[in-house]
């Protein structure tokens, strides 16, 4: 049926004028793919599905959301009221909001696994450096987008999260105070901040789409890496359609089951997806006892928090991102896949564990023990990148196969 559609007169007419059929054939059908990609490679397609869910549900939420901190009595605000109106009065509004809230967490979950896969099979290495950089940029834009978005319900966590994170800008020497007011549009987080965060939350997905487009374009020039980390050769190549369309569809199906389970049966994720305290309206006079970002931001937040100096904490957090960007040049081993790199593989697992520990610590109130554990995890995080340029000198790699 697909062939018949692509050969139809309408398709031909369009193709003569836009080359659209050629693009489809080149990028979605004939696109050469290594035949040994496992299910870890489905997360790219899944991420695209989540992005579409987020944009669609987000636009519908924006139709009923009011970005105003105007008080409406007993501590409530117009923004908070409008969200509850979506949850209660708008037909199926609760579903659309939960899709969006769970979608945010799902997006990070998928992206983190997608990145972990890239790190494990060495997909960041030459010639895929640019692909990797665009990927890290996607993560940064996503984190900015979700940060803007989390302010919108104007609950306690929204308000205090935004207050704490925007304060980061204030620590930059010289321009800090100016920058802080520039971000907030006032002397504190307020109505103006809410308005502009809403505008930016709407804008950033466009940037995201642009960078995702470039990410995919870069992929389609250098093509997919594979679990063996070697060039697939003529015999190792199969067309994207139908092999990976159906394989990705299955992956998307499994993802949708997990995603829907959360949307319908645990939409707040026991406080991990929508924090319990965010059902309290924002109160600028009362700081909640433990302000922690949502789980997907906590590893970076913990790096920030584990440094007892405000400015150095920010430098540390920024450096954590810089390390990710630099990864293609830090790693100098000629072998790509961790399958054949025992030392790198062990380091990688320790690195993943450190992120998990950082995330755990960042999500909990500071205690002396957690502070120490968080600091050790921060050291491990940076030690991974610090060791990376030297691993190839002593690592005895296992023999790489000739073909896949």
């Amino acid at each position, binding site marked *: 049926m697909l062939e018949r559609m692509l050969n139809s007169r309408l398709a031909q007419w369009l193709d003569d004028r836009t080359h659209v059929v050629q693009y489809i054939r080149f990028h979605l059908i004939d696109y050469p793919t290594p035949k040994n990609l496992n299910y870890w490679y489905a997360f790219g397609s899944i991420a695209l599905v989540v992005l579409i869910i987020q944009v669609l549900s987000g636009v519908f939420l924006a139709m009923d959301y009011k970005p105003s901190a105007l008080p409406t*009595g007993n501590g409530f605000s117009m923004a908070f009221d409008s969200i509850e109106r979506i949850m*209660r009065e708008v037909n199926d509004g609760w579903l659309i909001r939960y899709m969006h809230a769970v979608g945010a967490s799902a997006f990070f979950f998928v992206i983190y696994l997608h990145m972990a896969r890239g790190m494990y099979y060495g997909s960041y290495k030459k010639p895929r450096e640019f692909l990797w950089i665009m990927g890290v940029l996607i993560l940064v834009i996503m984190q900015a987008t979700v940060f803007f978005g989390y302010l919108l319900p104007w609950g306690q966590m929204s308000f205090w999260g935004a207050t704490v994170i925007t304060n980061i800008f204030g620590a930059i020497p010289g321009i800090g105070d100016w920058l802080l007011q520039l971000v907030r549009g006032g002397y504190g987080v307020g109505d103006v901040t809410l308005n502009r965060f809403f505008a930016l939350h709407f804008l950033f997905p466009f940037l995201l789409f642009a960078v995702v487009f470039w990410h995919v374009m870069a992929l389609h020039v250098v093509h997919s890496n594979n679990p063996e980390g070697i060039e697939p050769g003529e015999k190792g190549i199969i067309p994207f359609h139908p092999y990976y369309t*159906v394989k990705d569809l299955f992956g998307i*199906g499994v993802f949708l*089951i997990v995603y829907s*389970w959360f949307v319908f049966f645990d939409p707040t994720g026991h406080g991990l997806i929508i924090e319990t305290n965010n059902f309290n309206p924002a109160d600028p006079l009362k700081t909640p006892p*433990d302000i922690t970002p949502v789980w997907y931001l906590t590893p970076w937040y913990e790096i920030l928090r*584990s440094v007892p100096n405000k400015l150095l904490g920010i430098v540390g957090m920024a450096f954590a991102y810089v390390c990710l960007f630099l990864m293609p040049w830090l790693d100098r081993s000629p072998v790509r896949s961790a399958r054949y790199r025992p030392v790198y593989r062990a380091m990688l697992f320790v690195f993943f564990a450190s992120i998990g520990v950082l995330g755990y610590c960042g999500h909990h109130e500071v205690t002396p023990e957690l502070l120490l554990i968080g600091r050790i995890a921060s050291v491990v995080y940076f030690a991974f990148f610090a060791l990376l340029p030297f691993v190839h000198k002593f690592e005895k790699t296992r023999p790489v196969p000739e073909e896949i």
Partner: protein
Amino acid sequence: MKRWMAWLALLGWLGLPGGPGSALAEEAAPPLKPVTLSFDQKTLKQGAHVFAEVCMGCHSLRYVTWKHLMDYPEIGMTREEVDEMRGDAPLTAPIKTALSEEDAKASYGIVPPDLTLMARAREGGGAYIYSLLLGFEHDPKGKVPDGNYNVYFPGHRIAMADPLGWLDHDADEEADIKAQARAVASFLAFVGEPHQLERKALGKKVLIFLVVLTLLFWLLKREVWKDVH
């Protein structure tokens, strides 16, 4: 030498105290009382009545109108029942206390919080509300006056004075007070998210559909990939 100093600096940093943020040492609350909430019409109606007769003296439900008590099928009140409860209040107006914010501040020092989302905004949800209502005790230190000492409230001192008369209740009242607390906790847990039963019901259908669809995708994938290996 330099390397040695770097290690020392690192160790020193690990031992540095953190910034502020350590929690104030508060007296810990005991674990919440176990309770099974139920969203059947009988319990929810009873909860609505307890709310209107007791809680509404001070608290409002800003997102719940009188009409909602009829419109939400889980509560399913009749027009007559609602008319009796609402008095002169318009049908489409939110359920609101007659206590003004000024009077509340004068009497209690604070404005009583709105209760629509209380079950969502507290750890433990309905169980917290249930426990709080049954958490009034005599202050062992004798500082907090009777009726304002509550073991489940952070800091133990609560402005709300024992609304159901739990403190020093008679043995034969116990079952009734517990039933009232359970009913109103169920009611508040329900109105906190009025579409929750609809959500779960729809969720079952969606999941069944997705499992079948995914199974189909898996069969298709297996079929198509026969060519490759």
